[in-house]
């Protein structure tokens, strides 16, 4: 690991100022489970590492009926996966958190780190896309603004964030009923692996929502498949047809984990299983 300057600012203002000062040469350190691996392997060598864990108010999970569920940037995935509110109302998100890495990794890794890395296979991105979440972002001039999760991912490892921006948390709207349906991860082995394909297939607000990871340059919502399902009852023929539309709606690539064709096959299987679960 190359030498760098380590900063642990106690306010968003100070952190943002450091980010602007060092520009491209700065990296935010949160859980560190991606950044430190990249630094260790020589893929990333920031001049300045800005640890945001000293900033107050970023490690809370709060809920109220008006705004919904807000998860601070420094909340770990381990804290999320066992949080009673998530388990009851937003279970799909707790399941996605639990699927990431190991206990040791989840005790450090955060959902905000997971989505800001913007990997196409980010496990926690699919429930957030399915639930129409908002990313809360601090910038020194304008304070905190909200960005729809649908605008957040731009390309492989690229988000719409600008220099000096700091994600402070993620907000998921309140739905009157509990989110129904599950997170599914298809990987080469059961534990501590990256997703070959991952899927959140849920029903909430009277609507079926489907989001997939590792099937396009960013995690995606399957709007066409959802539109097809609108107003239909989930019988075996409808589910079969929806799975076919889903396969046509994604654009996976071949990489070390799987071929394009295999991923397309798995998309059909996961969408079908997800819908069957909801139809039960």
């Amino acid at each position, binding site marked *: 690991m190359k030498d760098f300057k380590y900063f642990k600012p106690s306010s968003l203002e100070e952190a943002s100022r450091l980010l602007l000062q060092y520009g491209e040469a700065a990296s935010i350190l949160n859980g560190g489970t991606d950044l430190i691996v990249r*630094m260790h392997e020589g893929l990333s060598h920031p001049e300045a590492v800005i640890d945001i864990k000293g900033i107050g108010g970023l490690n809370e999970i709060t809920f109220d009926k008006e705004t919904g569920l807000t998860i601070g940037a420094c909340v770990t995935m381990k804290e999320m996966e066992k949080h009673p509110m998530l388990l009851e109302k937003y279970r799909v998100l707790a399941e996605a958190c639990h699927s990431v*890495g190991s*206990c040791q990794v989840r005790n450090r890794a955060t959902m905000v780190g997971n989505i800001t890395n913007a990997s196409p296979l980010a496990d926690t991105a699919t429930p957030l896309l399915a639930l129409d979440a908002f990313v809360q972002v601090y910038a020194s001039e304008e304070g905190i603004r909200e960005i729809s999760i649908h605008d957040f991912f731009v390309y492989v490892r690229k988000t719409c964030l600008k220099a000096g921006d700091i994600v402070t948390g993620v907000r998921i709207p309140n739905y009157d009923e509990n989110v129904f349906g599950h997170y599914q991860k298809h990987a080469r082995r059961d534990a501590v692996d990256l997703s070959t394909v991952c899927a959140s297939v849920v029903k909430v607000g009277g609507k079926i929502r489907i989001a997939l990871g590792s099937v396009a340059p960013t995690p995606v919502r399957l709007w066409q498949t959802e539109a097809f399902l609108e107003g239909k009852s989930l019988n075996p023929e409808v589910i079969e047809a929806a799975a076919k539309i889903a396969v046509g709606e994604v654009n996976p690539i071949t990489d070390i984990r799987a071929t394009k064709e295999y991923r397309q096959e798995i998309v059909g299987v996961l969408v079908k299983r997800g819908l069957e679960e909801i139809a039960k």
Partner: protein
Amino acid sequence: MKYEINFTINKEMISLAVIPNKTLLEMIREDLDLTGAKEGCGAGECGACTVLVDGKPVNACLMLAVEADGKEIITVEGLATETELDELQQAFIDHAALQCGYCTPGMIMSGKALLMENPTPTVEEVVDAISGNLCRCTGYKKIVEAIMHVSENNANK
């Protein structure tokens, strides 16, 4: 540049000046001579470097030494007393839950963390808790048995 940090490790208070590009694992092994935690993969996949930070298991290879400021750390060396092994260490011996021993400190720390949070875990909970610890010798069966032995003992207390 060096950074002054203060933390406790195995209940001992330590003040140290560390360079930023040093991992917690390197500090523990090289500066503090506690060589129980090992580097296997350096990427958070094998768990051989598992230590407890504020009671929670983490990969010491994925944490910077400077981040230890203000933390309470426990390594495998902190489990036994002067004269007596921790019951989980004893269970590993009694169940022959190790062969080469490289994964053992990490495995024991993951098991210990689980038992501290939940004294009577089920087999499924044990398997989940050690899923981030690789062992190439034992096939895991005896490791699970050793942790379950402590779990069952706790249930009968």
